[in-house]
């Protein structure tokens, strides 16, 4: 079960101060990379039966967004902070 955010614990909804003393649950890149590499990048792919009739779908984000995500991986959230700040101002006007 996931802890926290119950009545009587730290939670913005119930008007209690969120625990700023708790370190953020940041997983290091090295640890993430271990899991990612094992489960995604180096996963074995079984050959498809019958061959492919269509080319694979491409997906992903732009280089600008990749740059911002890599920066976030390194703890630099400036790109997304700017979006959050503009959104907060926009939503407040609505």
């Amino acid at each position, binding site marked *: 079960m996931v802890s926290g955010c119950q009545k009587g614990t*730290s939670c913005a909804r119930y008007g209690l101060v969120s625990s700023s003393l708790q370190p953020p649950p940041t*997983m290091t890149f090295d640890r*993430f990379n271990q899991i990612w590499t094992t489960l995604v*990048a180096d996963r074995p792919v*079984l050959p498809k039966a019958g061959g492919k009739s*269509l080319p694979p*779908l491409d997906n992903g984000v732009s280089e600008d967004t990749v740059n911002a995500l890599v920066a976030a991986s*390194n703890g630099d959230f400036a790109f*997304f902070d700017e979006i959050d700040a503009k959104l907060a101002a926009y939503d407040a006007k609505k």
Partner: protein
Amino acid sequence: MSVKPVGLTAQSAAALRLAQSAHGVLRIFLRNVEKNYTLQIDQVESIVSEACLQHAKHLDTHDINQVTIDASKLACWLGGSLIEKLEGDNDHQCEVIIDALLKTLRGFLIAESKWFLLMPASAMRLLKSFLMAERRNNPKHGIWMNGLYAAFHCPLVAWKEGKAYKIPL
């Protein structure tokens, strides 16, 4: 049956960048969650493992070539994995995570479209209502993580396609 590895044994620069951008998705999602919610690192380990498993299955099931990270899809897997660890009747915790996930997806949509696609608060409320309906065993009126992903992914690719179509005119 023979198996073919997808990645490289020695991590290439491209593979490293892909992993870093995926880690960036995790950090942004957690950052949006942790403003209202305390998670333990073992819970993060658990949701990352589950999300990576589902992400790999998603790529294989739908025959997707992961050119760069599909940030919205990975965020959905992370959010879905976290919600699945909640007690069944804890709607409040579920709402907190859904809010964080929607905020994350809204930010990615803006980033990718350079502010041309801004999911309005009313649509966010509707999506949240769909998700909560699913959570409350009312699937006819609900969506889950693939539906949520599609709600953000399809407008974006349609916008990109339209933009590419209009440029030569």
